[in-house]
């Protein structure tokens, strides 16, 4: 079973999001997508050049004293402000929460995945923008799933349902990973994003915890739809 051995705190939204974000490049690169590091490169270039400028300012101030280097320092402060401002604008407006940019192995489409979460709500919002080869046609897909679908009760990340979610919803990824795509289709598509009130009542009466494998088995028998109770435990 493809479950990682590291456990994270399931109540920490930042941990959930970061672990999921880290899994996306791993998964897509393993399918043969060619990742583009342009966004990261520009961000690092801006950040490190601003840092280098500050270091240079420190150095000449240390060596030559304040009075003789006043003009340089003034120029350095202005330039630093510009660089930092550019970096902030880049991260907020150009990157916009992008986690992965890459080209599909066979079709050559460009895929851009960005993710978001809302404070204290354990739902993972993924936005996938697919641009056809040569820049033609932009398709935007939004997927919103609960983190419970790929984290078990203890906090281990389970790769298969996460990959199924991506392969089943995004055609480009599904083409590159037919095994997961067909698995996603066979399970009837969209899984419920949260426990319904009836399920919660049933669980309370059955006196089991709401998260964890015990709950999954309990709700599996109550839930409507094609979901099998042991779906998440299967390899």
């Amino acid at each position: 079973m493809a479950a990682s051995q590291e456990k994270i705190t399931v109540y920490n939204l930042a941990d959930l999001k970061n672990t999921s974000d880290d899994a996306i490049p791993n998964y897509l690169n393993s399918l043969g997508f060619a990742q583009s590091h342009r966004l990261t490169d520009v961000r690092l270039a801006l950040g490190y050049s601003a840092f280098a400028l500050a270091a240079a300012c420190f150095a000449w101030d240390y060596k030559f004293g304040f009075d003789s280097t006043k003009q340089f320092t003034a120029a350095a402060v202005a330039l630093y402000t510009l660089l930092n401002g550019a970096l902030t604008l880049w991260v907020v407006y150009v990157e916009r929460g992008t986690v992965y940019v890459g080209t599909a192995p066979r079709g050559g489409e460009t895929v851009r995945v960005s993710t978001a979460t809302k404070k204290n709500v354990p739902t993972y919002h993924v936005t996938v923008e697919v641009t056809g080869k040569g820049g033609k046609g932009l398709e935007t897909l939004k997927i919103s799933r609960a983190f419970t679908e790929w984290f078990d009760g203890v906090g281990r990340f389970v790769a298969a349902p996460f990959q199924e979610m991506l392969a089943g919803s995004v055609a480009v990824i599904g083409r590159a990973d037919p095994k997961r795509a067909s698995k996603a289709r066979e399970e009837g598509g969209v899984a419920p994003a949260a426990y319904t009130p009836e399920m919660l009542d049933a669980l309370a009466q059955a006196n089991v915890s709401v998260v964890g494998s015990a709950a999954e088995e309990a709700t599996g028998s109550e839930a409507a739809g094609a979901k099998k109770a042991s779906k998440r435990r299967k390899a």
Partner: protein
Amino acid sequence: MNFGLILSTAFMMWKGLSVMSDSPSPIVVVLSGSMEPAFQRGDLLMLWNRNLFSETNVGEIVVYNVKGKDIPIVHRVVRKFGTGPDAKLLTKGDNNAADDTELYARGQDYLNRKDIIGSVVGYMPFVGYVTIMLSEHPWLKTVMLGIMGLVVVLQRE
């Protein structure tokens, strides 16, 4: 990189303030009790070194470094001779019995306007005690660096 940027932004803000006020050290800590009851040891002082509206006059509280020493001294101007950047100024601490002639370098009887690193334009009581503690107990610096190092290592980036 983020941690480095935090450090460099803090440094650049300090330098920006320094350039704006035209003072090598726009924020200083009062180290002695020579200006009591106005300033106590540990107060943080904000300095301004540009004479935009009027020159540094008698009665202003100024900060200067004695030639050759790195310790900033905060005293009041009590005499002034001449005008402009070459004016000669005599200072005295409010709480001192005598003026600063003994504090100046050997053979120096007056301060030049150029020696002054700024006039006090504002202050915050007690905040500067952190700096005094750091310089009097250097092991505190190691502790602080250790904590910062831990934070960097445990962070995500």
